[in-house]
């Protein structure tokens, strides 16, 4: 069985106006059997999701978790946490017979279980409530033993792993071992015999004997001396004698005296302890004689782990996720890039978006593509508050500077610029497009060239209608401006073809040919652009007809776009330093460009969309 859906009403960040409507949960989140990774910026609700599950289902480590005032969304009076389980075997279902509901599937039906915790508060006082099961209005209280079968295994972030693994009363390690089948024999377990033997040896050592009662060699008699001195005093105090022994020899005490280490390890760092901790909890999830829920909740799996080890841990968990369900949270793009999209759940502003087939507009092919091309840098998009997808280096370099030039700090706004190269932006954008409500709120701006040539390359023909050859005998070409009406018609048609704007995902398409052509056309940027292009391509005869030369280079793909962008960016940044108020030309004009149908208007609009301005 596994947790298939979590619904929240007015729980922490998950709320809207504080009202309560059973039919409209503030979060309805589906989980996969196997691995689920909650990924997202800080305060996006990842921990709230984990905590909600913990509060309803409780954990094996039996920590004290209860609903507090702060768990209510704003001033709401009623919160509800609801979990639904499916995929139950008969053996698992038997624990919940009284609470089961059925869904018709094929000829017969499949059982599912709904449990919930519905809590109200009045005048700041939280009214105690029971955990109940069933889909009916009144529910049926879940018995303690049935609840036991739903406990989760929880690994908290930044845990004090060292202390959890060291020997002490009720240590986590002893709890895990004690409940394992290997230690089900509480009376005659082999360890008990061993402990008794050790105890006898210890007691006898202090009497100067070995276990068989024979005298110890002279070198080992110091223990006897110690006892003798103590006994002498004790005898004078109260006529009593001492006896030395280890802790009592019942299985629980023995397990409590164990600690867990690496086989060859000393001086372990926090990271290593964390690994041991994870390993020991996995033992808990794997125990054999258990037909209750096997759900592991891991918060910030990357905490204290080296990026390389993070990946190994994730790979291992992935390979073990067949017979257990894992839900973990992460801040690590590293991990984000390694988990297949279908197992990812993006959290954003109190919403959670699973990225599986059923939810996004991505098709099978897209998943394969993204699996390969989603690297750590691009995985950044899971943490951003806004995304700008661009198709080349020039845009990647220029967009943030233009943003700065209009007073928007993209880093501060949490907007990521993702250079996807070519037209793969389509696939990336689909990550943010949902088949079903709720739609994603993260603004995505796609900046792309319209790619309609303003000039065309023509073979130069002599009067006889033959190609005009140069001195090397090759055909020569001339670059001619195309008919404005045709170009404009083609641009409009192409724009319509490209533009798949929808809700949060918006396309921003250049009104002219390419970015560079737009810069040239831009009233506010043209001077700066010309100056930079002339610097980069100093041997080109720009003077006669700049536009024609630019067109020629664009057609021949000989324009050093990256270099131009870099220098342009550098210049703009320098200008920003000398003119932070952006009061002088050209910054003044750039700031005023929006809405004036300037050629770089589309970039400014994209920036504003992605940054939520």
């Amino acid at each position, binding site marked *: 069985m596994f947790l298939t859906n979590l619904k929240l009403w007015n729980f922490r960040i998950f709320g809207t106006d504080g009202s309560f409507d059973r039919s409209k949960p503030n979060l309805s989140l589906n989980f996969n059997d196997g691995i689920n990774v909650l990924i997202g910026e800080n305060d996006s609700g990842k921990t709230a999701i984990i905590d909600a599950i913990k509060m309803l289902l409780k954990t094996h480590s039996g920590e004290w978790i209860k609903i507090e005032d702060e768990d209510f969304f704003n001033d709401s009076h009623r919160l509800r946490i609801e979990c639904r389980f499916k995929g139950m075997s008969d053996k698992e279902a038997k624990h919940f017979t009284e609470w*089961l*509901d059925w869904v018709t599937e094929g000829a017969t039906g499949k059982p599912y279980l709904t449990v919930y915790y519905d809590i109200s508060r009045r005048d700041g006082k939280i009214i105690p409530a029971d955990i109940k099961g069933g*889909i*009916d209005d009144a529910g049926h209280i879940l018995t303690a033993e049935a609840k036991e079968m739903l406990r989760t295994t929880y690994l908290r972030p930044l845990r004090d792993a060292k202390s959890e693994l060291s020997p002490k009363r009720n240590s986590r390690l002893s709890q895990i071992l004690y409940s394992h089948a290997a230690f089900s024999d509480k009376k005659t377990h082999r360890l008990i015999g061993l402990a008794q033997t050790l105890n006898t040896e210890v007691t006898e050592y202090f009497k100067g004997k070995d276990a068989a009662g024979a005298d110890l060699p002279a070198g080992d008699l110091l223990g006897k001396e110690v006892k003798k001195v103590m006994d002498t005093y004790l005898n004078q105090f109260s006529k009593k004698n001492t006896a030395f022994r280890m802790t009592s020899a019942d299985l629980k005490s023995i397990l409590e005296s164990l600690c867990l280490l690496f086989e060859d390890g000393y001086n372990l760092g926090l990271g290593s302890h964390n690994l041991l901790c994870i390993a020991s909890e996995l033992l808990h999830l794997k125990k054999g004689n258990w037909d209750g829920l096997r759900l592991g909740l891991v918060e910030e799996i990357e905490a204290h782990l080296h990026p390389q080890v993070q990946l190994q841990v994730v790979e291992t968990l992935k390979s073990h996720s067949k017979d257990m369900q894992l839900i973990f949270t992460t801040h690590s793009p590293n991990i984000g890039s390694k988990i297949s999209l279908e197992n990812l759940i993006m959290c954003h502003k109190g919403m959670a978006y699973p990225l599986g087939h059923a939810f996004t507009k991505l098709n099978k092919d897209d998943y394969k593509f993204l699996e390969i091309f989603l690297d750590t840098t691009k995985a950044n998009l899971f943490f951003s508050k806004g995304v700008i997808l661009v198709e080349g280096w020039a845009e990647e370099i220029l967009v943030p500077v233009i943003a700065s030039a209009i007073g928007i700090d993209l880093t501060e706004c949490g907007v990521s610029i993702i250079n996807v190269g070519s037209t793969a932006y389509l696939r990336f954008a689909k990550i943010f497009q949902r088949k079903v409500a709720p739609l994603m709120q993260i603004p995505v701006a796609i900046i792309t060239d319209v790619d309609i040539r303003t000039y065309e390359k023509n073979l130069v023909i002599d009067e006889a209608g033959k190609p005009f050859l140069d001195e090397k005998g090759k055909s020569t070409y001339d670059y001619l401006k195309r008919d404005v009406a045709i170009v404009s018609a083609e641009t409009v048609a192409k724009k319509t073809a490209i533009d798949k704007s929808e809700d949060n995902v918006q396309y921003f398409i250049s009104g002219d040919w390419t970015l560079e052509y737009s810069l040239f056309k831009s009233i506010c940027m043209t001077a700066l652009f010309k100056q930079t292009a002339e610097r980069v391509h100093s041997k080109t005869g720009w003077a006669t007809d700049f536009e024609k030369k630019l067109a020629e280079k664009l057609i021949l793909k000989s324009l050093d776009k990256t270099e131009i962008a870099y220098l342009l960016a550098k210049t703009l940044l320098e200008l920003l330093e000398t003119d932070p108020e952006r009061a002088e030309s050209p910054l003044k004009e750039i700031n005023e460009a929006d809405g004036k149908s300037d050629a770089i208007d589309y970039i400014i609009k994209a920036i504003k969309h992605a940054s939520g301005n």
Partner: protein
Amino acid sequence: MPQEIEITDNQVRLAEKHLLPQGKSFDEERINFIKDLSTHDLHAVPGSGKTTALLAKLIALEQHLPFADRSGVLVISHTNAAVDEIKQKIGHICPRLFAYPNFIGTIQGFVDAFLAVPYYKSVYRRRPVRIDDEIYDENHFPDYKLSAYLNNRSDGKKLLYKYRLGKDGKLTLALENKPFVFPETSSTYQKILAIKKGLRESGFLCFDDAYILAQEYLEKFPGIINILRKRFGFVFIDEMQDMDKHQYDLLETLFGNAAEVAYQRIGDKNQAIFNSESEMLDIWEERNVKELNGSHRLHPATACIVESLALSPITVVGNKTNPDGSVVDIKPVMLVYENNTASEVISCFSDEIKRLVDVGKIKLASDNVHRAVAWTAAKPGDKANMIKLNHYYSSFSRDHIKLKINYPCLEAYLYFHQEDAGKLASIRKSVLNGILRVLRLEEIVNPETGRSFTKRSLVDWIKEQHDDFYRDFKLQLYQITALNVEQKKKEALNAFVKLATEVVSKLGKTIKKSKAFIAEKYLPVAFAADPEQKNNCFVKNGIHIEVATVHAVKGQTHTSTLYMESFYQINVGGKGQYESSRVADQLQGISLAATEHEYIKQSLKMTYVGFSRATHLLGFAIHKSRYDKFYAGKPNLDRWKIIKVNQS
């Protein structure tokens, strides 16, 4: 069987300690049964102590709880009384057995909890308000035209109340799958169907509905069968012979032939006298039959008579001994009366008891129980020559207290509640039921759902909507129950009325329609403190003989039982209309022909039950005419002491 569990001698001894008088132990026959955890039917003779043996097995099993796979034990009995008895006897010894994941209850309770309610809530997304025949009937509201029409028909009540909403959405007669008397297109059909559908929707279910829903559940989601088989590794049915066909079939579907379940059905099909429509004898297909032949109630002189009456042949061994270990040696008596001496039969029987007391064969003790029983009691329209219970005891009346959920007035709720050894819970439940009744009379529904309140939803509603009142509500509820326990009925009633009024006002209404119901005084049936005055009790020479029907004494143990023949049904095969004539052949050692008429079989079962109650003296009253015709000079008459009943 779910796991390798073995019941040890130590566990049997633990059970002996709790269940048997000090120093007694189970005999081999019973120990074998207690230790046997395989699927089988146990056929037990009357007085064999099968229920005690089952309890011993449960005590032993409880020592193994919780099972490694966390499965549970299911124990089903037929009546609430039987379930209460189990709770009372072993509840304190093995509390775990009475909690999740185990279930001990009636067949109805099991079906409600595991099939009907889960299925109902899955379909309707809420819980049934009540599963109860009387409340179900009470909520039929036919319109004027329909009630006028039905009032004019002799079967009007049956048409309205006895039909159920079948799983195909059509009306069927009870659980018999018989269609309605009128075609589906008739307006009567449609109106009654609408009423039934309304009841189903609003959550008022009758007991039959629970089985209809259960059946629907199993057909729609057969997966539940395997889940229940996993849930309950051990299933014990006590008093199997009392199950009706639909109950038998349901249990068979769930647990019959399930390899992983140890399914044990315990009973005595010779005692199946409750299910009139269907005969358990015919439907109970036995598997791996084991027997308990030794009876601790019967002695050799009665055992041989009881054995001869067994429809399904079984050896009956009379093991009843006196406290000193000697065999009880009391010859059963045959009381031969005539028309004018029928009323002297009980007196004559009491004289025989007196004689046995005087010679020391019956020890006078406070727990002596003497009963005089007959199958049938007089009905209006009987002819004078039909001898029934009232001929022997003219003032016999059938009235007896039955635990009902609906009572005529509010005060009655303070009187009729389950006797739970002073526990407040059952009184609290009864008080809540009383308040719900007031709400129903006032036609007040839960404003949240628009449906009638249940006990739970009422308490929840108050908790959620009137937090301030909630504490006070709980306090008052406690005070009413406490006052009632202290027998301060008047104060309890005042507090009860106050609370009901307050609840109604919290719901924005005032007491109107329920005024009469609240004001009416409860008149307890006069039970005089002096047992001499008790109804249905014959007293002579300090010997009290209670008069009852055979059905009423089923399962009981008496010191002496007088079975008085009575008129029933029609004459088949020349065997008359009285038990004496119908079972004469069997008493005389002739085995029953398989083709024998149903009425003969019923008479055999009735006498089997009635004859097997007594530990000491068994009496059988026969009219002289039938004695002369069927018994005089026939075999086995030496088993009886013949006494002629004289006029006093």
